[in-house]
């Protein structure tokens, strides 16, 4: 099979793959390169902030690291995973947003509850409360 016939065969099948309203995106060279450049920047900055302690304040550094992580996840999802309002009639986006909400509840909820359990139910604190009890 010559390379040209393979190519035309492939293009034909690709048309078939996209029939019936399937608009799952593949992205373009442009979107991949933009995604790569943005990701490189969004990775380099938090590493630089932590490795050379630029801000000199652990709270601000942590906040910046989290902000850059969220930004980079969004960049990857759009540029590499091609999630948008059109792909699969919007169902990939719906599933992604739903998962993000559940993920946030699991992580933030666990941290919140366990932090309060740790601070409110320390053995020392319990005996202290018991000692002051009438």
């Amino acid at each position, binding site marked *: 099979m010559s390379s040209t016939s393979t190519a035309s065969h492939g293009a034909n099948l*690709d048309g078939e793959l996209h029939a019936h309203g*399937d608009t799952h995106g593949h*992205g373009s060279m442009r979107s991949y390169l933009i995604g790569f450049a943005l990701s490189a920047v969004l990775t380099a900055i938090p590493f630089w902030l932590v490795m050379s302690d630029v801000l000199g304040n652990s709270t601000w550094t942590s906040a910046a690291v989290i902000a850059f992580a969220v930004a980079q996840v969004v960049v*990857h999802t759009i540029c590499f995973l091609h999630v948008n309002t059109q792909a699969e009639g919007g169902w990939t986006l719906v599933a992604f947003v739903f998962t993000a909400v559940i993920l946030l509840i699991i992580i933030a909820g666990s*941290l919140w509850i366990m932090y309060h359990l740790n601070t409110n139910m320390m053995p020392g604190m319990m005996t202290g409360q018991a000692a002051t009890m009438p």
Partner: protein
Amino acid sequence: MTTMAQDNSPVDPSTFYVVEQDDHGHGSPTLLGFWIYLMSDALIFAALFATFGVLSSSYAGGPAPHEIFNLRLVALNTAILLFSSITYGFAMLAMERGGLRAVQGWLLVTGLLGLSFVGVELYEFAELIAEGATPQRSGFLSAFFTLVGTHGLHVTVGIIWIGVMLVQLNQRGLHLENKRRLQCLSMFWHFLDVIWIGVFSFVYLLGMVR
């Protein structure tokens, strides 16, 4: 059978089900289904991240993150995984052009980058264990090895999948099913890079800050 079909010929016998749903050639249901799987996989990682977050300061007298983490190795691994994402992107663009050799070449590059990622990670684990920072040492280290190890296991499975795809492409070429498989693998591979963003940010960088 044949006589019955002939008897019923005025009534189209194949209208008892939606014809299109039985044909998996369109790719659409598979790709969306695979995406739903990835989202459920994300929830596994959510549970592991939550566990790590809860246990991240339970050192039990053992080593703290800033004593054992080597950020240069993590930066190297992050770069490797990001480069493997863009090389897989090039494989997908080559697939759309129908260039079989280019797809195989970029897949091979992606697989080798994945192998070096797993190699660096295993080296890091070996160093930690040699220093006595084993999973048994503290709650923090148990959660660390479980979270990072699960991600590494996913990457290993992705490398095996890339190997299988290379064989299938070599035997069958870029037909419809292989294109669909390449699209699923594309989502899987990029998804692992997204999870790694969480790992290097929340485990390593925040661990060093704490």
